[in-house]
């Protein structure tokens, strides 16, 4: 067990290190912008005094390393900086501090919405994909397997917005069962919220299920070809028991890996789907901020997406280490 603990700690440290380096990359990328934030905020007609004032205000006259350090320590304390759009707006209105204009306050509810969407998707997609994947592997080369192959390939290959509009066409426009716009409010009941989330969740499910099912199928087929499965068959073990006792314990690691990888993939799929359904999540905020070049928000969203992605990959890694008998029981 000790050795496993050591490996896991190593992975964790590596994950933290990666996150740290990624934060540097994001920070540097943003600092590649021509001119600087102050000019960007105030536009072309800005007076030099105003630019200098804002520059001092945002700490832009500090050297790069200091600014990075300020930003990072802010992030670690949950302070993601101030949104340009909000700062602009408050300057325009004339209010002094801008009130609760912090990026963190802006992102928090949207982050919760996105997690809700991802959660609903995962609840539908994971059991469906693993179940269908195992079936396809068991009855490989059957009509079901071939049909599933064509179907999953098609759905993997289609852009998310294609699937989204096809679903809207059939489930919202032709048969008005679900709303095509997912306008969600904080004080909404869970049933209503679920109903509004279902269509984007179904779209994501289509994409993720296809990926997950193919990977599950490949993992199981690989496993079924191993000599110990043949041995179990030659011992006269019942087919169902071969699956539950011989295949599944070994399939756990690859399947867990597949699930985590696809949840990580979900993180990026969210962006397009949220835009299609006008779902008030972090993805939509991200795209909107990209368009108006609201740097602090872009930076913060990017960091959150990257962190989620790294964490899920890390989780996949650790879980598959834990479920590998060869690593669990050291010589």
């Amino acid at each position, binding site marked *: 067990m000790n050795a496993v603990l050591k490996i896991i700690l190593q992975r964790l440290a590596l994950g933290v290190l990666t996150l740290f380096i990624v934060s540097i990359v994001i920070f540097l990328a943003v600092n590649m*912008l021509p001119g600087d934030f102050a000019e960007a905020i105030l536009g072309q007609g800005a007076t030099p005094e105003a630019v200098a004032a804002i520059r001092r205000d945002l700490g832009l006259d500090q050297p790069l390393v200091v600014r990075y350090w300020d930003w990072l320590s802010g992030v670690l304390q949950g302070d993601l900086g101030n949104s340009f759009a909000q700062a602009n707006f408050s300057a325009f209105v004339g209010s002094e501090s801008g009130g609760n204009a912090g990026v963190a306050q802006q992102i928090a509810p949207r982050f919760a919405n996105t997690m809700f969407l991802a959660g609903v998707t995962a609840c539908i997609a994971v059991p469906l994909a693993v179940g269908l994947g195992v079936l396809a592997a068991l009855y490989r080369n059957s009509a079901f397997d071939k049909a599933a192959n064509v179907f999953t*390939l098609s759905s993997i290959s289609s*852009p998310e917005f*294609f699937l989204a*509009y096809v679903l809207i*066409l059939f489930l919202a426009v032709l048969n008005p069962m679900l709303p095509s716009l997912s306008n969600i409010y904080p004080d909404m009941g869970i049933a209503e919220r679920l109903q509004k989330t279902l269509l984007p969740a179904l779209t994501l499910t289509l994409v993720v299920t296809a990926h997950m099912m193919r990977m599950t199928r490949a993992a199981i087929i690989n496993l079924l070809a191993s000599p110990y499965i043949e041995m179990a068959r030659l011992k006269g073990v019942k087919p169902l028991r071969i699956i539950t006792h011989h295949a599944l314990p070994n399939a756990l690691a690859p399947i867990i890996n597949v699930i985590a990888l696809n949840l990580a993939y979900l993180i990026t799929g969210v*962006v397009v789907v949220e835009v299609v359904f006008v779902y008030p999540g972090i993805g939509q905020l991200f795209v909107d901020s*990209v368009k108006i070049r609201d*740097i602090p928000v872009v930076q913060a969203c990017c960091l959150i997406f*990257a962190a989620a992605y790294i964490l899920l990959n890390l989780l996949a890694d650790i879980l598959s280490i834990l479920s590998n008998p060869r690593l669990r029981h050291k010589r």
Partner: protein
Amino acid sequence: MTALLYILAALVILLALGWLARFVGQKATGNKPLFRDMPLAVAFGYVLGAAIVIAGIWYYFQPVTTEQGTPDAGVTFFHWAVHGFILAAIAAFLFRLLGRHVGTAGSKKLFRHMPLTAAFGILVIILYAFTAIFAGVLAPYGQEEVFAQVNALPGGDASVGGNPDHPLGTDQIGRDLMSRLIYGAQNTVGIAFATTLIAFLLGGSLGFLAATIQGWLDQVLSRVVDVLMAIPSLIFALLLMTIASAWAGSQQWLLTVYMVVIIAVIDSTRVFRLARAVGMNIVVMDYIEAAKLRGEGLGYLIFREILPNATAPLLAEFGLRFCFVFLTIAALSFLGVGIQPPLADWGTMVRDLAQFINFAAFSPLTAALPIMAAGAIALLTVAVNFVVDWMLQKSSGLKE
């Protein structure tokens, strides 16, 4: 809730039918192994499949117009889908037949063992390439040409707001949609192809170099790639596009160039990983050791010994990468930060035409417009994936 109950009841009935079908089969065939050793789950599967097929046939023969005289869009779409599917299958079959009888001995042999999906894929790729290359000849108008009638409905029926000169109608500022759809092939596919090519040159050469030299170069490159891959590619692309748009300023074409470079660099990390892995597998072979011990130089090792053995996996990867790049570009354009107007592009078209989808009940063809643009993207990636899937299966089958 009741719907759920109905579904559950239907499944139970199907299960019973499955048992019955197996029982009848056993009796009728005198306990042939096919029925004797059939698990109940498989029998259920057969019955379920049959039920779905029957339901589809029933729906197909529903009237196209409702009792009120308006078109039933659901049935219409289903007809289109079924006809499209049958047409595609026939085209693929004929194409494969052609391939089996025309061409060199090698290509004939290739077509003989080709599944229909792969034949379909190749056919579609050829058609897209043709359209992209001859877009200028095929399109009735230029992609930037603006006409007086805006928002003409598709179908060309002047009585309901169409225009026979524009079979697919015009957009908000009066550009011919048919022409833009055709030019889209040139722009979207062409840009994606160029991007993939750059990504491959960059990632592939560095990957093989890392695999052959190993040591510190490999370490440095691999760590850099690890970090770049830790950021989800679409997110990273969006971030960099924000910066690029500031750099490009008002020069829209420059932004498109930046996009190509950004996506190529992000994607080259994936190519690097694969090229390195493939290279590593080849480098451990004894014939590479023999060449090294002979005193061969780096160029000979990479180009004469490693590369010829890496072509199959690299070709498959090229297909997959192309799909990925193509989808990323389409997504960026859809989000409004990709290929910039006035270039006609499918992702942008989907976004601009999206609201037409709400007209489905009145004019199915109008609602189909955004789906058509999105489908044009999907069709090509599906086709490429079919071909790649077949290639991968073929090469893995040879190994066993």
